[in-house]
């Protein structure tokens, strides 16, 4: 369904991704594993059209979408959940969830929403509360629901279990499992595969420097095949210079 062919991505003329490649089929869950700053987020952003691709190609259902604007990708059924949730605090959970429906102009909006509430009944409970009043975990669920609104074919999830209590992380895995069984393709970027390793069909390692072969064992003893890997730029930078000052709070929140 999704094929990424050797893409190069620069941010502020610093090479972030080089020759990165990956493919994913419907009903598959694929992990993209790498440490902080390895380029996972950039990779997802490039697929979503938020980071411009210098060379290489991204196809979705065999159609080239390398240069397509993000809204067209959303219309094709790609949903994106950013790492830090980024819900609009003053809007209710439901409004946050339905944003993509309005913007993309999804015709069966109501059905889609009903389906989302069906998959994640817990979000229905707090749908009328403003996003700012939700806990971090609840926000994470809303962000996932929002990604689902447009993304009924492919989900791009950036660190879905980061900063989430173990119970919720387990719940998140369950939801993803349901979605996978519904035939969605799911690409998860994680630095910590603890909670969803057993769901993954394939793993891609993203790390600066050379490719590591990394067989991962399932609970039942089987091995997750390492389908390929993404060589990433050698000089992966320590971040974009601009806002060094914003990051101090780090994991305190």
């Amino acid at each position, binding site marked *: 369904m999704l094929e990424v062919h050797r893409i190069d991505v620069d941010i502020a003329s610093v090479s972030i991704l080089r020759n990165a490649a990956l493919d994913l089929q419907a009903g598959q869950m694929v992990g993209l594993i790498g440490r902080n700053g390895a380029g996972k987020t950039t990779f997802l952003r490039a697929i979503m059209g938020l980071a411009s691709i210098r060379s290489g190609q991204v196809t979705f259902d065999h159609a080239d979408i390398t240069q397509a604007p993000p809204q067209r990708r959303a219309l094709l059924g790609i949903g994106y959940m950013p790492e830090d949730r980024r819900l609009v605090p003053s809007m209710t959970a439901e409004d946050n969830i339905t944003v993509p429906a309005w913007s993309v102009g999804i015709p069966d909006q109501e059905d889609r929403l009903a389906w989302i509430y069906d998959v994640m009944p817990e979000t229905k409970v707090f749908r009328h509360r403003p996003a700012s009043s939700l806990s971090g975990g609840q926000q994470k669920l809303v962000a996932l629901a929002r990604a689902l609104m447009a993304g009924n074919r492919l989900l791009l999830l950036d660190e879905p279990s980061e900063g989430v209590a173990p119970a919720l992380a387990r719940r998140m895995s369950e939801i993803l499992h349901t979605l996978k069984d519904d035939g969605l393709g799911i690409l998860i970027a994680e630095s910590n595969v603890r909670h969803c390793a057993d769901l993954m069909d394939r793993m891609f390692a993203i790390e600066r420097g050379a490719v590591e072969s990394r067989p991962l064992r399932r609970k039942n003893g089987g091995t997750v095949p390492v389908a390929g890997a993404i060589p990433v730029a050698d000089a992966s930078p320590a971040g974009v*210079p601009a806002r*060094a*000052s914003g990051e*101090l709070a780090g994991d305190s929140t």
Partner: protein
Amino acid sequence: MRSLTGDRTVRGVLIGFTLLAIAGFFLPAWIVNNVMFGLARGLAVLGLLVLLRTGLVSFGHALYFGLGAYSVALLEQLAGVTELVPRLAGAVVVAGGLGWILGFVLRRYRGIFFAMLSLAFSMALYGILVKTESLGSTDGFSVSPTVLFGWSPETRHVFLAMVAAVCAFAAIVVQVYLASALGHLTTAVRDNEIRVEYLGYPVARSIHTTYVLSAMLAGAAGGIMAMALGQVDPDSMVNWTVSGELVFITIMAGAGNVAAPFIGGVVFEFIRTYAFELAPHAWQLIVGATLLAIIFFLPNGLWSLIEKPWKKLEKRRD
């Protein structure tokens, strides 16, 4: 001292300004005037350049420019001072003094908030000047010709030489400052305030120092402008459009070198003179179009045109 004379920029500035001062004696008066106005603006732009190095853009530097100009005018009105040194000192001290006071507030702000707060302060001064009769209201004051140690030179060429000397001095001071550890802190603060703070230097102090230096430069610039022009008034010294022009020249000149502001200032003055002559009703249009062209095609300013041959020259000398 050895490092001072060893600095190519310092040598370049000294040679350049000396040549300019000498050339002044052979140039027609109107060119001398435009060069002087250009140098005066350049001095203020040098102040903005120092701020820009620390990542701040003031949209209200006309506050100090105007304050310097009005200091010169008021010193004459109230105390009859027409000597160059006290005039200039007055402008620098008053501007630096207010810069020091406002610095306590402004050093807490960055980005758009810094720009807006600077604008607010400058417009508050504008509001006072425009409406106060004893401060000349909209008219401002005339400024009589400047005297140098009791000697009042017949021609303005001598004054150009004095202005060139002041500008060269300021450029060298700034160059030495920027080469010092303290001066490098400006860039360090722009790059990463947190790191500077955690290395043990208060970011606020670094910004404050830079700000006061910048205010003093703009004050001196305003003082020189008042002396060169022979007139001060709020609309041409303190209004926000003046601040806008100064930022414009800063971007036009480029922040690459302490000489750039002066080149930018003089070029701006000539663009304006010719634009006005060419199209009295459309000179702003020409200036505005130049501004857009620079932003689009020469984002690093005029200095980037000079930098390449300059670097080549340096290489050859090495």
